[in-house]
């Protein structure tokens, strides 16, 4: 009996754990306090990687959905990856909102402001909750997959709006410190390194989760088919008796 794990997922898991250990140590102890934000800056080491992974997850959902709708091999495997990626993305988007609120409480004195970045992020989160709800609607597997894929391709258009909301409108949220179009990174080296390790850790974790969850979706499908076959066989046996 084999589960959803392989040597690859175990390797990814080990890298994710090692990087996570550094993020906790580096983020809470090794890195210096920020001159302006004080210790609140330590939230950045989980907040920024969470947001990055949520964006990545939703883009992967859109790419897999495009593969299902327009690809040469319209396999339901694309749908399983899209669904798994969206589930993981919703978790990380939720974490982005919560950790951002905690940071906002320290920095702005409020857990929530109807600021362009916060509002568009919350809207993106709700959109993908809707996407997951659409995936749960009744219908044949192919029909459900196509319906969800269309929603995913529309939902991903919100990401540029969220990312550039701090540029398009006046926002309380700070602009990009690392991905600054001017190339001027305003971070201490150790802080930048810890942030980078955090991004690697969360990306590995995302990959691990998507691999396991898309395989789990395949198991659910096959096990469900088996149950259906057994139920049909039992009915036929009853009818024949």
């Amino acid at each position, binding site marked *: *009996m*084999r*589960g*959803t*794990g*392989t040597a690859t997922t175990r390797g990814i898991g080990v890298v994710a754990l090692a990087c996570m250990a550094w993020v*906790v140590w580096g*983020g*809470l*102890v090794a890195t210096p*306090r920020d001159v302006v934000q*004080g*210790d*609140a800056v*330590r*939230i950045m080491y*989980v*907040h920024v990687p*969470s947001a990055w992974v949520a964006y990545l997850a939703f883009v992967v959902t859109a790419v897999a959905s495009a593969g299902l709708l327009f690809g040469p091999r319209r396999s339901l495997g694309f749908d399983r990856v899209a669904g798994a990626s969206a589930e*993981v993305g919703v*978790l990380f988007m*939720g*974490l982005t909102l*919560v*950790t951002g609120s*905690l*940071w906002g*409480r*320290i920095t702005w004195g409020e857990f929530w402001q109807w600021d362009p970045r916060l509002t568009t992020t919350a809207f993106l989160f709700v959109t993908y909750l809707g996407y997951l709800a659409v995936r749960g609607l009744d219908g044949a597997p192919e029909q459900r997959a196509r319906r969800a894929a269309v929603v995913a391709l529309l939902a991903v258009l919100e990401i540029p709006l969220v990312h550039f909301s701090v540029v398009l409108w006046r926002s309380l949220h700070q602009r990009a410190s690392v991905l600054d179009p001017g190339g001027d990174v305003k971070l201490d080296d150790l802080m930048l390194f810890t942030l980078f390790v955090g991004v690697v850790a969360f990306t590995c*974790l995302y990959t691990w*989760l998507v691999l*396991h*969850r898309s*395989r*789990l979706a*395949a*198991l*659910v499908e*096959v*096990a469900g088919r*088996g149950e259906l076959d057994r139920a049909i066989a039992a009915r036929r046996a009853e009818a024949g008796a």
Partner: protein
Amino acid sequence: MTDAAMRMPGTTVFEMHVFAMDVLAMEDAGFVLGSYALSAVAILALVAATLRRARRLAPLVRDEDKPWT
């Protein structure tokens, strides 16, 4: 571990004590630690739920139907 060993630099208990004191002494420790704790709990919950469900379903499916194996 004796009190003397606990105060001795280089021992695990001493390092953990220093680590804990450093962390708790930071400004807004509740919010900062809360953000790390919430993230860890949410991620671990999803990991545990995924592995538990996979272990429950794996025996019901033949290895031939698991293309990743």
